[in-house]
């Protein structure tokens, strides 16, 4: 199997608190894996282990075929990380931040302007980051994460609390990176975003991985196969739910459409959030 990242039986504890409990998963090149879970689920700890910032208590990590460990510059030269906290150099400009990190990666003739244009920051390139808005800082974080054209990209809540325009810019970059062939691990508790972006999603709660699958498979497995039809006749409005598994479901839907009373038809598939709650017994906002 062609894997960019292979994590096996990873565990990590902060003292007595078990943050991650023996999780295993893999990530293929060009794939986006949404890591979903509420605050404190162990998402950031997992990313720290995967990026070599923390040494797992148990388990192993293989990144692009090589064992990942702390102080592994060869492996870290091939990853990109966008942290949850905006850890940028505030007294430096956006351009200076990117140039500095390009030097750490040993990139020669780095085209800062092109990258700044990609994240829509070219017009503020020479302003200090301390003057940037939250969305601008996050876009700069994203630019920094892809500065070395990483083979594996780790994104920790990259769109949290952002305006729609900044969120859209970042989502476009994530898609673009995946299309380029980068494996993307995206942690979020925004189920809609995960659904839109992820090829597969992993449900993490209290350090335990409950499910890893494609959103469609999860919806098929846990959702309801039904449609809800809203019908209007004069001032009277009523709803009818049709189970798709029923033998006469097709006939009934055709019949309603032909009746000219149909106002709307909605599928009744479960959202990822519904499935998460069903599997873990816990909501995402906790």
């Amino acid at each position, binding site marked *: 199997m062609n894997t960019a990242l292979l994590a096996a039986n990873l565990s990590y504890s902060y003292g007595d608190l078990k943050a991650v409990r023996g999780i295993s998963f893999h990530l293929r090149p060009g794939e986006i894996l949404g890591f979903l879970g509420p605050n404190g689920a162990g998402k950031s700890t997992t990313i720290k282990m995967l990026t070599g910032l923390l040494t797992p208590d148990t388990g192993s990590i293989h990144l692009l075929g090589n064992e990942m460990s702390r102080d592994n510059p060869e492996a870290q030269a091939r990853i990109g990380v966008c942290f949850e906290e905006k850890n940028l150099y505030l007294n*430096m400009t956006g351009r200076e931040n990117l140039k500095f990190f390009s030097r750490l990666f*040993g990139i020669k003739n780095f085209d800062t302007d092109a990258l700044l244009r990609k994240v829509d920051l070219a017009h503020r390139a020479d302003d*200090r980051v301390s003057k940037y808005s939250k969305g601008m800082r996050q876009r700069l974080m994203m630019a920094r994460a892809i500065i070395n054209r990483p083979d594996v990209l780790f994104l920790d809540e990259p769109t949290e609390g952002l305006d729609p325009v900044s969120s859209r810019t970042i989502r476009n970059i994530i898609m673009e990176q995946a299309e380029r062939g980068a494996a993307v691990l995206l942690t979020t508790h925004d189920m809609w975003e995960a659904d839109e972006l992820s090829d597969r999603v992993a449900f993490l709660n209290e350090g335990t991985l409950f499910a890893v699958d494609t959103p469609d498979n999860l919806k098929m497995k846990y959702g309801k196969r039904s449609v809800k039809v809203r019908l209007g006749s004069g001032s009277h409005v009523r709803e009818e739910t049709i189970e798709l598994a029923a033998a006469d479901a097709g006939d009934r839907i055709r019949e309603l459409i032909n009746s000219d009373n149909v106002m709307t038809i909605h599928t009744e598939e479960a959202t990822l959030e519904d499935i998460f709650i069903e599997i873990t017994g816990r909501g995402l906002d906790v």
Partner: protein
Amino acid sequence: MRSLSSRLAIIAAIVLKDLREFSRDRLWMILTPISLVFMIVLFLILPDTVSETIKLGVYPSYLAESFSMLIDRETGEFQGLEIIGFADEDQLANAVLRGSGEISIGVALPVDFTESLLSGSKSSVSVYVSESVPQEMRSALASGVRETAYAVQAVYAGRNPLSTLPVALPHLHARILGEDMAGRQVPLRDRIRPILVIMILFIEALALAGLVSVEIEHRTATALLVTPARTGDLLTAKCVTGTILAMSQSYLFLLATGGFVFNWLIVSVLILLGAGMASAVGMLSGTSGRDFMGTLFYGTIFVIPLMIPALSTMFPGRPSVIIRLLPSYGLTEAMSGVLGESMGLRFAAPHIMTTVLWDIFLLGSAFFLLRRRVESL
């Protein structure tokens, strides 16, 4: 394994970044030049010479000779006492009052002093002393006046006051224990130069502490460690930055105050070692504090004890054991000796060795603690 050149390139990139950040920190960009200028001005306004001769003014002037006879002339030396006669008592008082060092002490005798002495009647003598003359000197002067009375009595009796005593005076041999600094006293300006250098070094330690704490507080260190930069590269870069900051300020100060007329090679080694110690202190302070105020607090806690040996050099006598055990003692002693007394390598070598050992210990501790702190982010 990465090549040495790629590691050096990473360290250089971090150092340049740190210097850029330092140059944009308003606090340090104001504090650094101000403190440097303050130190240079303080140095320049201090006296650059030491007068070892005490000038004694005597009124009336014809009695100056009697005072001179008190001085042991067997050696033909005045032993640092110069006697000047004044024709007017007010002139004498004014000369002492001016406090310009012209006359330190004045003795005004009544014009009928000798007659009073010879007739056995009580006379009154005025002694003028400038405010800078210590109390012991004033007591010695009172004894001097009494001696003068005896001498005058002998002179007027037609005898040499030193050879006609009823007792034989012993020969006096002054033995200086330690080095005799007579004739080559170190001016205050030169004595304070090493103290100012050490102060500058440790002020810059606080600047580095600020850079380290910001890296921790904003968690930018974490962003560095997911690149090919290692923790060791980051720590080395911080050490280099601290050393550059501390050394450059010290060099500027010494250039402005003529400090490199002394053994510049030893001075450079001492500044390098001092800058290393300052870097260690900066890293320790930056690691300990959680924010700017915390860093400043811990920085002060670390810096004050290190300043004590420098301050103690202003006072005579050997420092206490506790002071001699402080990490900066060897550095201070060597700097004082080389910068203040033009001492050479033979004097400085043991202190350099001690400072090297302290630098290794302090930098090692700073690396260990900062590494732990960075890796726990």
